[in-house]
């Protein structure tokens, strides 16, 4: 009897130890990607026509906060602060935002294909941008603001339709995805129509905008994006455990006390807002919203309390790295980063799902 008890206690301790070490692995993953992102940012800023060492980059950045403490090369403050840092900061913010939005959308819709792209957000932004560039119509005054405001407003239209269907027609997750895909087609078709009737210069502008680029950002944009992320991401993390519970189906989630419809709509709105505010400043940067959450889940499992922050960090590191390639591959020519994310990320993802022994879904 005593032996039996000791055996049971040992088994119990073993289960707890395994659980704790799994948590440890998740925290390690998150810490690793924080450091990697910081390092990649340093590398990214150090590269360019004017080369600095990585340490000089960090010194230049810290010099702002602790003046006369570091030795900073001439010109470095201007190049770092005014040119290169904007790119990198936008890369970090966009990577975090797109990945977090994708992870949340996949979670609430219980569908591995959900992302800002499949839900029509990018197509909406594309139409908004095309309207602003080609037809010059839309909301907002000056041309730059017109473009951003247009892209933002139009990218939210599909989300409103989807949320409306969920709210008033009690649409299931499957219906919500199909509605998103239907709207992607509609918005793309209207965009194509505009492209067809536009002149060559405007067409090129639109196409380049669509490709997604980090170079458009200014310090002013960061406040907008940064504030939206700072409000929205904590909200998503707050709801992340409910997201786990909903992963087992609506019935089970209801029986565990979750107001499923309300939570789904709430997360959909918050995630769409994140995606929209990023897409309107950067254009379409594909792949991250879809795949960063999957790669994260392959590494650390499906607990959204960790998946949401971890996939955000993975997205940031990935996008900053992709931007380094975009700038260096054909230097001095800069390739739009959206092209690189898909070209590099696609094969990487294929490799990961092929290598995985057990079924992931």
């Amino acid at each position, binding site marked *: 009897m005593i032996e039996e008890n000791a055996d049971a206690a040992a*088994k*119990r301790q073993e289960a707890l130890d395994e*659980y704790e070490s*799994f948590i440890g692995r998740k925290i390690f993953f998150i810490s690793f990607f924080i450091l990697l992102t910081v390092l990649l940012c340093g590398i990214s800023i150090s590269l360019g026509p004017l080369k600095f060492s990585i340490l000089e980059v960090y010194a230049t950045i810290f010099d702002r906060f602790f003046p006369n403490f570091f030795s900073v090369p001439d010109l470095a403050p201007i190049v770092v602060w005014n040119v290169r840092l904007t790119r990198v900061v936008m890369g970090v913010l966009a990577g975090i935002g797109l990945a977090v939005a994708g992870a949340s959308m996949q979670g609430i819709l219980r569908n591995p294909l959900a992302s800002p792209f499949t839900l029509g957000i990018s197509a909406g932004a594309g139409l908004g941008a095309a309207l602003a560039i080609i037809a010059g119509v839309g909301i907002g005054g000056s041309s730059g603001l017109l473009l951003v405001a247009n892209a933002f407003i139009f990218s939210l239209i599909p989300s409103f339709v989807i949320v409306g269907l969920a709210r008033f027609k009690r649409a299931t997750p499957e219906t919500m995805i199909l509605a998103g895909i239907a709207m992607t087609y509609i918005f793309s078709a209207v965009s194509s129509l505009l492209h067809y009737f536009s002149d060559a210069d405007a067409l090129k502008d639109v196409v380049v905008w669509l490709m997604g680029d980090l170079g458009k950002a200014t310090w002013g944009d960061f406040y907008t994006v940064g504030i939206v992320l700072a409000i929205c991401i904590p909200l998503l993390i707050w709801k992340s455990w409910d997201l*786990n519970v909903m992963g087992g189906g609506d019935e*089970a989630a209801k*029986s565990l*006390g979750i107001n499923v419809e309300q939570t789904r709509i709430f997360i959909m709105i918050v995630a769409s807002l994140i995606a929209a505010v990023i897409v309107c400043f950067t254009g379409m940067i594909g792949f991250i919203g879809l795949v960063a959450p999957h790669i994260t889940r392959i590494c650390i*499992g499906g*607990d959204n309390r960790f998946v949401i922050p971890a996939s955000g960090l993975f997205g940031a590191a990935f996008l900053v790295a992709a931007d380094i390639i975009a700038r260096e591959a054909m230097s001095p020519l800069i390739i739009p980063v959206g092209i690189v994310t898909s070209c590099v990320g696609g094969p990487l993802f294929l490799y990961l799902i092929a290598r995985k022994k057990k079924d992931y879904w």
Partner: protein
Amino acid sequence: MKLKVMDVEFGYASTPILRGVNLELARSEVLSIVGPNGAGKSTLIRCINRILNPQKGCIQLDGSDIFQMTRMQIARQLGYIPQSDHQSFPATVFDVVLMGRRPHIGWRSGRRDKEKVLDVLQMLNIEQLAMRDVNEISGGQRQKVLIARALAQEPDVLLLDEPTSNLDIRHQLEVMDAIRTLVAEKNISAIMAIHDLNLGSRYSDRMIMLKKGVIAAAGSPFSVLTEDNIKQVYGVDAAVKEEDGLPYVVPKSPIKHNGGKQL
């Protein structure tokens, strides 16, 4: 805890599923709901914890109306065990059982919640599965995980929807034994929808037989599982024997002409 279901009616659009269902459940009691496919067994279970909202009627827990309660309040008293469960994304057994703590805590699970999870895993003897992915374990194991999750909720009443479907006979008995033991040890009660009349007979104190959303018979297994009731409700000729002091049904043949009520 006393559960009372009064005059519950539920239907989809114009198709009525449940009509005027009444039942009562006392503490430490196991109640089985039997009946043919489409009789409303699962629907009744789902109405009781408001996964579905009945159009009419009243459901009370210890005298308080569940329609006045929030989902969280209901979840602290009623644990639901679905027929099957598929996690859309990878999830460990430990994390799935931990979800049962959701009605009691907000965002963070603490040391106490982990201990509770270990307690129920140990009780059901599945602690060695703790870190396995729920989508990769066997059907019988998964059913135990779902029971564990409901127990982590610390409910007063367990609602089970076909807990033994898709299980082999050994796992059926293991799962039913586990439910019986838990009801006795924790002084809770259980309502289960079940297809297998003999399992229902063996493991429940009382039975309810539903036919097209109406209670056709209710009472002890002996009073419900009669040859006549089975003929009327299922349209099946059956012999009812006795084994271990309990009725035992041997289905023989479907009745060919049943006044147009062929099933």
